[in-house]
């Protein structure tokens, strides 16, 4: 029993990270109809920021600095990607463009950091373990779960309660209408793109002590985030949250029960959800497209 609870905690930590990563992907997808295939590469930028700054632990301050630096780098990348993809209206071109940027970024990272798998130690103050239900559990992962909860609450308040949030929701629902009301939707889109990419890079730093940093991780993370977005439903914050928690659990339980088929289970879960609800579990109320 305790094994399953620990596994569920791992799933929650994974879900928190997936939420941070998938949120931007989902909103950009829902608003701009852009599939940002460079999202995984942005994540990897964050992971390597962690490698550069806090590879062997370091203090809490350095870790916070790494988070901020990654957020900035991600936001810059996101702005560039938003500009590029707005210059190319066709879906296929956008997919190709972001795939190209992704290849360039990933290759540049492996040129700078080598092809090795880097492991990252949790910052010194939270590197230890705590006893949960008679089992020792890494304190850092509990903090990641806490971060996920804070992020979910924060984003919920921002999107559902603030004026900026209503602007974002309106743009997801009907971009043409919002634009006709005199709002510069381009700026909203770029802002969401930048914020989403910043979050993905922060996710890379936070995931560092759990997943490490290695070439090829960008692809894995991108696929996981895509699955989360598809399962949760395009363009909705709650969908991204539900999808992230669900996929985090499927992956954690799968790793415990059927280690060899864990990733297979994830795609199985996605297929199942899509069979029952083709638009995902909680799509944005006005679906951008079928």
């Amino acid at each position, binding site marked *: 029993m305790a094994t399953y609870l620990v596994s569920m905690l791992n799933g929650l930590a994974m879900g928190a990270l997936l939420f941070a990563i998938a949120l931007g992907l989902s909103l950009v997808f829902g608003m701009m109809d852009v599939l940002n295939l460079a999202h995984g590469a942005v994540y990897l930028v964050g992971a390597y920021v962690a490698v550069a700054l806090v590879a062997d632990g370091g203090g809490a301050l350095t870790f916070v600095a790494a988070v901020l630096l990654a957020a900035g780098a991600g936001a810059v990348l996101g702005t560039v990607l938003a500009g590029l993809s707005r210059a190319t209206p066709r879906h296929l071109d956008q997919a190709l463009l972001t*795939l190209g940027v*992704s290849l360039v970024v990933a290759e540049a990272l492996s040129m700078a950091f080598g092809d090795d798998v880097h492991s990252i130690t949790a910052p010194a103050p939270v590197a230890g373990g705590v006893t949960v239900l008679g089992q020792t559990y890494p304190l850092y992962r509990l903090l990641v779960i806490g971060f996920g909860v804070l992020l979910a609450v924060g984003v919920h308040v921002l999107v559902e309660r603030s004026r900026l949030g209503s602007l974002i929701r309106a743009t997801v629902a009907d971009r043409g209408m919002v634009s006709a009301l005199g709002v510069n939707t381009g700026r909203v889109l770029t802002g969401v793109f930048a914020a989403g990419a910043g979050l993905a890079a922060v996710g890379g730093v936070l995931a560092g002590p759990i997943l490490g940093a290695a070439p090829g991780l960008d692809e894995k993370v991108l696929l996981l985030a895509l699955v989360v977005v*598809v399962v949760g439903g395009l363009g909705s914050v709650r969908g991204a949250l539900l999808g992230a928690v669900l996929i985090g659990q499927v992956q954690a339980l799968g790793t415990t029960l059927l280690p060899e088929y864990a990733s297979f289970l994830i795609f199985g879960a996605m297929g199942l959800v899509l069979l029952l609800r083709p638009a995902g579990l909680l799509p944005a109320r006005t679906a951008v497209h079928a």
Partner: protein
Amino acid sequence: MKVAHESPAAAADRPPSAPRRGAVRPLAGAAVLLLLTAAPLVLSAYPISTMTRILAFAVLVLSVDLLTGVTGLPTLGQAAYFGAGAYTAALVGIHLTPDAAVQALAGLAAGLVTAALTGWVAVRARGIVFLMLTLAIGETAHQVADTWPAVGAGNGLAGMPAITLFGGPPLLAAGYVYWWVLVVAVAVYAAVALVVRSPYGRTLRGIRDNEPRMRALGYRPALARYGVFCLAGAVAGVGGALWAAHARFVSPADLGFEVAALALLSVVIGGGGSLWGPCLGAALVLLVRDNLPASIGGHGPLVLGLVFVAVVFLLPRGLAGLRRAPMTPLLELRGRKERRP
């Protein structure tokens, strides 16, 4: 690569398009075919081996083009059927017969069956959602190949004997394998060209351009899409069998995300809907991926990424679009031309 049998329908699929210029195209096609056939007589084994891989990959690209270029369904999962064909052909080679024709047919059947089994999930979606569903199918296939002990799991499937043809001796020389692959690839190209210019092909393009109207006209878009998905799976399966016949080794990497992404890139570089363009794109992409690294210190992906970005901005309609672009303004002045039947 092969400009031999480009169909008039493919050239005419997007008005405005340039009028056919008499005998130029068949002559160019014949010349390219002749050059391709003569290649093993003048080139050494290594470039011939590269060209063999390009031909097998071009068959996969044709299958992506059928879906993406002709029907408007962008796919990132076609490598799954390519892999199904490759693994099946390798298993047939190891356990049943080294006969290449049997292997190619087995690859075709494997691609067709797996596409028929998985396609009905994907064809319900359109656009980017279709892209993501096919991505999921591709990744699932990759996982299966990577974990299933019966097909060598992560180590891949090795020990496939050299292919034979019609009971002859094993084909060990690169040139003979190349000729076999060339013959099959040209046959597939011709078959795809026939499909594209057939009434069914026009139905598919109609679905791409205006699905509601096609439905109103009494066509059944869902059925047509499912059909082309199965067909594309069969084509990809043949490509996989050719790939296996040449490499005699199949690994999970052969059906990974990268292969599917490169195939889609080839279609976009070449110009979706045209058939010769994507084949040319396949050659370009594979050359950049496999042959540049040696000369620039292993940074192939970097160059490839820059190529991706450059293509989007410099070649919005692909290589095939370049050829007809100069005629565009003139035709627009005259108004839209009727499509040739």
